[in-house]
């Protein structure tokens, strides 16, 4: 039975959303525009959040090392752009190359995480953080030749924000767009998200998925029943990284830019926060958690921007976003600590 857990973070989040929605009426911003934007924001970040699911279910913790998978996706896009691949071809090749690189990165990442079972979250955080300067070195030294990607002066090193106009910017956003009155539904984008979600859902139903789900339940028992834990963890981590690579490609095509260098630095925390809002626990996350959590999280912060601007303090929306993000993650850590202690007694 699927029951929505309503705890302090979810309640605060929903009440904040309601307050914002009510105050929008007084500012005079039409709800329809906000709903249209929220659908795009939902999918834009949804795939990144979805990428956390396989790792949570195998008991490898919430993937704070998301920048690793993201870097793979960024690299895939840069290679596609280097060959000036446009439209669907560019998008497809980005996903293909990004996934191949993500398999490589995920394999290395899984070796690190398999050595350090039980401490994945802190190790992942720093693995992600330390990976960014390595990629920065790569971005500034890599021999890319496409002038549109390089710094305008000097001709060496990729620029921090590469424009995707003319390549595959907005390709999913504008695919199968349906207009009903003033409501615009980006059907292609949402379908792409649902297909990925469905794949993850099916994966959880396979033999391998079920075996993975029993590893965090009882690792010793799983080992005794002949499950090769390290191998399953490796597969789940690689799967997470592939999804993260696809996630950043979907994100970038909506955003219109490839954001290199320090762009992915803080992307893990909002994603983790979103899946926690959706009701995921330490060892169990479902596709439903992802969809609900991402929608709530992204919509709340989408609405908070015009409200903060109306109050003449534009920084406020970003600060409140950070407070919410980190507060929810902290709450999860504290709450889990208490529950574990109660179980022990």
């Amino acid at each position, binding site marked *: 039975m699927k029951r929505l857990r309503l705890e302090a973070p979810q309640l605060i989040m929903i009440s904040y959303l309601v307050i914002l929605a009510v105050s929008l009426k007084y500012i005079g911003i039409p709800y329809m525009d906000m709903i249209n934007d929220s659908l795009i924001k939902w999918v834009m970040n949804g795939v990144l959040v979805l990428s956390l699911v396989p790792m949570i279910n195998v008991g490898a913790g919430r993937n704070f090392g998301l920048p690793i998978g993201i870097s793979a996706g960024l690299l895939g896009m840069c290679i596609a752009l280097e060959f000036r691949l446009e439209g669907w071809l560019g998008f497809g090749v980005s996903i293909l190359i990004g996934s191949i690189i993500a398999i490589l990165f995920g394999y290395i990442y899984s070796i690190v995480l398999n050595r*350090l079972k039980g401490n994945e979250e802190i190790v992942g955080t*720093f693995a992600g953080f*330390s990976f960014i300067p390595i990629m920065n070195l790569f971005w500034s030294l890599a021999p890319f030749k496409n002038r549109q990607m390089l710094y305008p002066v000097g001709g060496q090193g990729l620029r921090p924000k590469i424009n995707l106009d003319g390549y595959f910017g907005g390709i999913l956003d504008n695919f199968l767009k349906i207009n009903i009155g003033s409501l615009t539904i980006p059907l292609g984008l949402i379908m792409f998200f649902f297909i990925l979600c469905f794949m993850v859902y099916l994966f959880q139903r396979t033999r391998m998925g079920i075996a993975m789900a029993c590893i965090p339940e009882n690792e010793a028992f799983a080992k005794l029943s002949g499950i090769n834990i390290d191998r399953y963890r490796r597969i789940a981590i690689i799967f997470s990284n592939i999804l993260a690579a696809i996630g950043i490609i979907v994100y970038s095509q909506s955003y219109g830019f490839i954001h290199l260098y320090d762009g992915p630095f803080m992307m893990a925390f909002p994603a983790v926060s979103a899946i926690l809002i959706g009701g995921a626990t330490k060892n169990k996350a479902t596709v439903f958690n992802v969809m609900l959590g991402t929608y709530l999280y992204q919509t709340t912060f989408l609405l908070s921007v015009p409200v903060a601007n109306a109050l003449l303090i534009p920084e*406020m929306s970003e600060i409140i976003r950070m407070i919410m993000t980190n507060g929810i993650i902290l709450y999860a850590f504290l709450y889990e600590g208490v529950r574990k202690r109660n179980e022990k007694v």
Partner: protein
Amino acid sequence: MKRYNEYYVPIFFLILSILGIVAARVGFNFILAELYARFVRNGIFLLALIFPIMAGMGINFSITIGAIAAQISMLIVMDIGFVPSLGFIIAILLSVTLSIIFGNIIGNLLNRAKGKEMIASMVIGFLGTSLYQIVFMVAYGTVIKPFNKDILLTRGIGVKSMLDIGEYKDLFSNLLPIRIGDAEGSLVPIIIIIIVGIIVHLITKSKIGYRMNAVGENMYLAEKVGIHVDNTRKIAIIMSTILASLAQIMFIQNLGILNVYTGHLNLDIFASAALLAGGATFKKANIKNAFIGIFLFHTLFIVSPLAGQNIFKNPALGEYFRSCIAYGTIVFALMINLKIKTE
């Protein structure tokens, strides 16, 4: 060979530093002058990390909260407008008070998150930063009315992102002047750091220090022999926060500029990387590690942008290299230490 295990990391950093100095082609005096400034600015941060490591909580990434306490008290002193010498003392007293309060809160939170202290303390640091920002960026000027209108932005809401505290910079300038390399400084900050170091060392050898060690060794056993585990851990965090706030006051005083919104960011990473470079582990750290680490790590930090400039004609590369070293040190330490723990 096992006896020299703890020196592997420092030796590695020593080799890297020497290579960096060779590649950067800078004078010794320049490095000494930079080292003096960095020693004064960052010295106490490293000492602040020692107590939580002893108490088995790993690295306390929430020393940023201590730094925030120092910045708050500095801002309040600036706002009210004391004369520098009185203001400095009041700032210290205020920041110690604030850090006791904040340290208590952090200690309580971390006691609930046993086994995940490091990541929890990191999230606490981020959360504290945001709360601090909302107070000084949004509430200052709207809810809180400052005495001194000059510290506000022109729109009347929020504190300026950079405040000049020039008067405080000259506090020690005439006391015990000393020439180190190219820098003309005062001996007083160094004496203060050494005194704090000695105090930290004495505390580690005192009763409370032994209790912390016991808790760090085995929490359940310590509970059995009658040590109040939660309290001991809380004391470790409070002392760490106090030291961090003192360190930040030294930092601001030496720099002469108060970076209101960015001054405290990334301090935790660099301080912990420096301590680990000095040969500390997540189980064992002492003031020797702190003092070795600060020299090795910061030498590397000073020369790496210059080395990047000379080798690749691109100073940004040295910048990336040094952040890579900072984070890489922590990842490396995590891998080594946690592996030992599981075996």
